[in-house]
């Protein structure tokens, strides 16, 4: 290989590496979902008493001290005061867990602790208990910027997540990026399409009249494009969650969020 072709090869390698991290949405253009809501809903989210999600945060606070499992141990026994130990945790999830040897979102992290450290069965997705604990933990990152690791063992999940984001699915043959990248800010019937970030989860969604997880919201999107819903904890949902977190890096955690 001549010098010229080597140089071109190197240049291509550099460009592809740079492209791999290239953001379709520059940081300064990021808009949280709350910026698409009316003033009343933004106020509801900011209200530390009247935000309906706080009902689950309180439930989680009680569960934090509840002994569970064969080891009869509570979260507080290891993690002490959540105000210290849980600060910033939600902002770096999903994360590849070396101990579990897999990618975990916050729900997966809670269940990993339950099974490995408490000898307790995993909590079902959208159960009051799992929602309570994740809302409680995530609330301790409120106001902190999302920052997730996509290198090392997480890299393959990140790339897969990006592929899923760009893949058309369902009877409507739409990819996430068709709405949330190419048409964010435009109207779909009476609604304005948001950029589709994950910084506010778990959220009290008015449509659900309850608190729900990011995985639930993603499943709702699958139904929106008339695609088969992946099961909870499907690898697709986890990989997508990692990509979404990276895509919205820098946005502040708003959990428990309020969304329409």
């Amino acid at each position: 290989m001549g010098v010229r072709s080597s140089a071109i090869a190197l240049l291509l390698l550099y460009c592809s590496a740079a492209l791999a991290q290239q953001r379709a949405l520059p940081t300064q253009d990021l808009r949280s979902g709350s910026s698409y809501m009316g003033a009343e809903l933004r106020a509801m989210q900011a209200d530390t008493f009247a935000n309906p999600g706080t009902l689950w945060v309180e439930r989680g606070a009680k569960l934090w001290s509840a002994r569970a499992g064969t080891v009869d141990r509570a979260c507080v026994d290891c993690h002490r005061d959540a105000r210290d130990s849980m600060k910033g945790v939600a902002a770096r999830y999903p994360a590849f867990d070396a101990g579990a040897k897999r990618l975990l979102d916050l729900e997966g992290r809670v269940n990993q602790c339950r099974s490995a450290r408490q000898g307790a069965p995993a909590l079902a997705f959208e159960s009051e208990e799992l929602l309570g604990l994740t809302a409680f933990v995530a609330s301790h990152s409120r106001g902190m910027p999302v920052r997730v690791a996509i290198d090392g063992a997480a890299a393959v999940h990140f790339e897969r997540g990006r592929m899923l984001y760009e893949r058309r699915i369902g009877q409507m043959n739409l990819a996430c990026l068709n709405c949330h990248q190419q048409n964010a800010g435009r109207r779909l019937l009476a609604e304005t399409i948001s950029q589709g970030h994950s910084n506010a989860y778990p959220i009290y969604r008015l449509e659900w009249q309850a608190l729900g997880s990011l995985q639930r919201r993603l499943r709702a999107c699958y139904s929106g494009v008339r695609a088969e819903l992946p099961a909870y904890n499907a690898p697709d949902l986890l990989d997508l969650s990692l990509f979404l977190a990276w895509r919205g890096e820098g946005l502040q955690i708003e959990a428990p969020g309020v969304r329409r």
Partner: protein
Amino acid sequence: MKPSAQFPANRRHARRKLLASAAALPLLPAFALAQSEPDVEVAAFKAFLAGRKAGTGRLTLDIPRIADNGNVVPVRIALSGPFAAGGEVRSIHLFSEKNPVPQMAVFHFPQAVARVEIESRVRLAGTQRVAAVATMADGSLHAATADIIVTVSACIDGS
């Protein structure tokens, strides 16, 4: 309009003529926004009044112009004082024009209080008018209405 191989030329021409004449018809009002129509009634409110007159100006009803979602709509009702002895508020009724259950809530005030202000969240079955009416100890009434646009979700949520 693209010519269709299925339809012979004379039928295509007839279709075009029909559409052209339809366009000339005066547009029927698809939906008249309640705010601009003084005769929109909140039936349950009218039934509650039973012919009595309600004063306006003292009772305020704050509700968003457009609801992000009809499931949860914040509402605030305030009745300005002062409340002289015998002029305290007894109850406040909240009525809906279009909901299946028109009487949304009744709030009672068994003890006198200097500030009468309630907040809650309602469900609204579509764009409509809501009405609030306060009943005072001396039987007098104060009312307010508000119009709100309620939109439906664009995507089906099967989660």
